[in-house]
């Protein structure tokens, strides 16, 4: 890839390994199909349609690709969940509702490299036997919606989309559907409800696992933009070669979106797990801003649990157990999970010592209180309450006991909701309180009223 020139100031860091972002900020690159084809585009589709669909799924399984949307579920395994005796149509949905705070990778693909996504989608649709695919585009990407629609039309003219693709008899229509600005539409069953024209209320699982009972109660595969793009590269490289990228069980590359208090925030496509936190923040991102020190990192989008930069984690069990320093954390799914957080959507939010944790907490709470869909009780009422509690902490109106109430509320949400939003909103609160309790408590005052005298008396009476 030495021949690829990037725009000045946009050159990839030497530690990067660009697959998905190969064409982002590339010199002389545009979104036209001519440019894409001249660069070898749609060759993998030609290769894929000559394969057995099941063989493509097997390749994806063998590649070890894990979903890049947040949960990190193996993509090939997900495809395998379509019931074997299915007689209903199968739908493929590309989830481009990228709305996890701190995440800004999919937007570059749909704005700058639409054909890579289309190629990935057509191959994936071919593999799962889908003839109708939807691209669910978040409301905030109006230009990308137009870019994608234009690209789909170009691809149709060339016979890559539409009827009888490349003369194989395989048909696929891709529709771009624009959301209406709701975080919950990124949750796959919420997205499906939205696509059906309803309020995006996530569905209960069981019974509504999308692979069996998804869009219009038919089998539906929902994949993230980046995941679908990887499919193209798996076909190109072969699953064995692809699986050699990254580390065991955490294969391939992924795009880390670094934001916040570093010298060089931005997107960095790296091999999964080959980079430690130290290398990411110091070598690639240039370290903290002058005169500042790193304080904490939210490693996978705002819903992942915060990590303190001075923390040490216990990793592994039994004889394999070892201590892992924060700076030595490998940025992969399993290591971050072992540290009690998650790789999530790849949005790394860095906080330095200028940041008050109460403000961070309150900012996150405001987001989730605003975005809770309101369907199920703990999320609907709990997030509004957490916001009000952290508002008082930030404003210096909280009593020390309010920290405990806030923590209790978070645990009353966690694990009790219909969809993962409950965890997304309660984990940051749980983690910030657990790791910065003293700092938060310092912002409270005994002079502030916790409960009225009557309430306290009643509490006392009831707990006797």
């Amino acid at each position, binding site marked *: 890839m030495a021949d690829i020139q990037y725009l000045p100031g946009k050159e990839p860091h030497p530690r990067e390994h660009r697959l998905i972002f190969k064409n982002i900020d590339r010199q002389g690159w545009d979104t036209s199909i001519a440019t894409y084809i001249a660069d070898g585009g749609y060759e993998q589709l030609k290769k894929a349609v000559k394969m057995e669909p099941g063989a493509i799924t097997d390749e994806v399984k063998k590649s070890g690709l894990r979903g890049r949307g947040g949960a990190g579920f193996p993509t090939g395994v997900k495809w395998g969940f379509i019931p074997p005796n299915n007689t209903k149509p199968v739908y493929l949905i590309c989830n481009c509702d990228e709305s996890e705070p701190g995440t800004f990778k999919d937007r570059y693909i749909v704005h700058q490299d639409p054909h890579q996504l289309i190629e990935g989608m057509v191959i994936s649709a071919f593999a799962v036997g889908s003839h109708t695919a939807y691209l669910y585009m978040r409301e905030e990407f109006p230009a990308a919606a137009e870019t994608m629609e234009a690209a789909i039309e170009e691809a149709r003219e060339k016979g890559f989309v539409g009827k009888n693709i490349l003369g194989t008899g395989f048909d696929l229509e891709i529709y771009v559907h624009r959301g209406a600005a*709701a975080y919950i539409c990124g949750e796959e069953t919420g997205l499906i409800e939205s696509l059906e024209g309803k*309020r995006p*209320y996530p569905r*209960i699982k*069981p*019974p509504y696992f999308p692979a069996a009972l998804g869009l219009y109660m038919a089998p539906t595969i929902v994949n993230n933009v980046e995941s679908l793009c990887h499919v193209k590269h798996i076909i190109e490289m072969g699953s064995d070669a692809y699986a050699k990228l990254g580390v065991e069980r955490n294969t391939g590359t992924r795009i880390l979106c670094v934001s916040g208090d570093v010298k060089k925030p931005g997107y960095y496509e790296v091999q999964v797990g080959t980079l430690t936190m130290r290398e990411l923040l110091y070598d690639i991102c240039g370290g903290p801003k002058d005169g500042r020190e790193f304080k904490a990192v939210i490693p996978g989008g705002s819903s992942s649990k915060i990590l303190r930069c001075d923390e040490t984690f216990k990793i592994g069990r039994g004889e394999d157990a070892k201590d892992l320093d924060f700076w030595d954390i490998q940025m992969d799914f399993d290591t971050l999970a072992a540290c009690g957080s998650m790789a999530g959507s790849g949005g790394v939010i860095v906080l330095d010592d200028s940041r008050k944790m109460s403000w961070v907490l309150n900012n996150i709470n405001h987001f989730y*209180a*605003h*975005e*809770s*869909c*309101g*369907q*199920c*009780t*703990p999320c*609907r*009422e*709990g*997030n*509004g*309450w957490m916001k*009000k*509690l952290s508002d*008082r902490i930030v404003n210096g109106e909280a009593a020390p006991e309010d920290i405990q*109430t806030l923590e*209790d509320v978070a645990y*009353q949400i966690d*694990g*009790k*909701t*219909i969809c993962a939003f409950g965890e997304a909103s309660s984990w940051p609160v749980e983690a910030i309180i657990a790791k910065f309790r003293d700092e938060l408590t310092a912002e409270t005052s005994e002079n502030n*009223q*916790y*409960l*009225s005298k009557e*309430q306290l008396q*009643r*509490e006392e009476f*009831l707990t006797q």
Partner: protein
Amino acid sequence: MSETTETQTLPKDLAAEKGLVNVQIDGHWIQVPRGTRMIEACKQAAAEVPHYCYHPKLSSPGNCRMCMVQMGMPPRLAPGQDPEYNNEGYQDIGWMPRPVIACANTVAENMGIRTQGELVEKTREGVMEFLLINHPLDCPICDQAGECTLQEYSVEHGRGTSRFIEDKVKKPKNVDIGPRVNLDDERCVMCSRCVRFMDEVADDAVLGFTERGTHTTLTCHPDRKLDSNYGMNTIDLCPVGALTSKDFRFQMRVWFLKETKSIDVNCATGCNTTIWTRGSQVYRVTPRRNDAVNSEWMPDSHRLSFHKFQGNDRLTDPMVKADGKHEVSAWNQALDASAEALKQFDAAEVAIIASARMTNEELFLTKTLAQVLGTESIATVARDDQADGKLISADRNPNTQGVNLILGTEGSAGRLISIKNGLQDGKIKALVILQEDVFEAAEFTHDDLAGCELIISVAAVANHTAEASDIVLPSSSFAEKRGSMINVTGRLQRLNQALQPPGNAREDWEIIRDLTLKLAGEQNDLFIIEDVLKLLASSVKEFEGITFSKIGDQGLPLIDTGETIPLLEAEKQRINNGEIVG
């Protein structure tokens, strides 16, 4: 010597033979059909699980999170590993650390469910706390107080005190969403039962939510109202005081009301009802579950029809006309006068217009009356209108089947015409009219009755027929008597007495009995309504062996008319599709 290994039959195999699975609920093993929802299995084990959004007749969105229980399953086996069974033949249960909803999940073999314990109790306490933080807690002025699950579960599962000191969310109050239903959004717990009912059962999806998060607000579709004739069922469904009845609003605290199980008498379906009374007044009528009749619903029009018996036009005393003017009379005099007057006519000159709104017992006594009078001119008035494709039958009479069985008046419309002709011809000179207003229902004119020399009517409410009558005998409304009726499908059902008739009014069967006795000059041997049914049961073969207690609260199929109730057919379809429990 050969070694024989005895194969022990495991509980799972015993259950599987019957299509059942073994489930451990709070430590006790029970067998339930495969596919049973966990919440229903718990109910069978008498471990009621609290819930708001779940309703067996509606789809299960699982949104209230109140029904969360702890679930456990046998450990997942490694390939080639054989399951291990304990002494009782069950596999050990591995309990999940997180609770699951009981409403939408189904049972599986060797599943464990805990409806108690710290995890479950903490979860319920948390959900209750969340539901109450933004609730206005205006129980003292809320109509739902006393039958509110928010109140009930607060007592059973709540913390007893609040940690919430922030400002509550403000939402619309006293919202006029329809002609019969009022909405208080602050009380709403967003269980969506009303939304689902209007969509899935009433086929008029006018309700929905707007806004999001803690500001989620129940509302009616723009430019629409909740004006469906089934809209008031949302009031019964609402577990809290968000949807209240405009008719019942602020009328009475529910704990003062007496409940009487009865049936609706506004059409041949005979929806099962509960009549709610205090003193001498009906305050409301609500549907009562009967899966063979009305599921759990009833039309608004029928629900509110009790008002026509609560006006100032109720007849409270017998009246005899003297010099063209009705004079209040004592019962004995009025009955004597009636018998004397009727005796003045030949049998062929007397006709009886009875009603398919009468109970079987009343109809049976009417038949006896006709026999004593010697007349064969006996008819009922048909009431046909459009069926609504749900619960309202085209036949607006509640007991046409009873008339057919007891009076045998198939083609009674023809008989009514011959009575009308007889009146016009002057062949019929005396009329006994029971529970009908012939001007309104049978479209008689004053000219038709011009030649009629005697009219005796039994009526509950003042009307033109009563006005034209020589003798008026005041009777009872549906809520003031016992008796039985047969619905459109042939199901025998029971009316129960919720109130005493007003003033000196009497139950209809007593009036007809007394008139018959006066005419025949016989001694009474029918003292209670059971005596009448006993006599009926020995006279009409379909009723053989029937007693009121055998009819019971749910009724029993007496004859097969081949008719079905459309709403129940739609419900069956949804049960078969697995959409609802039913």
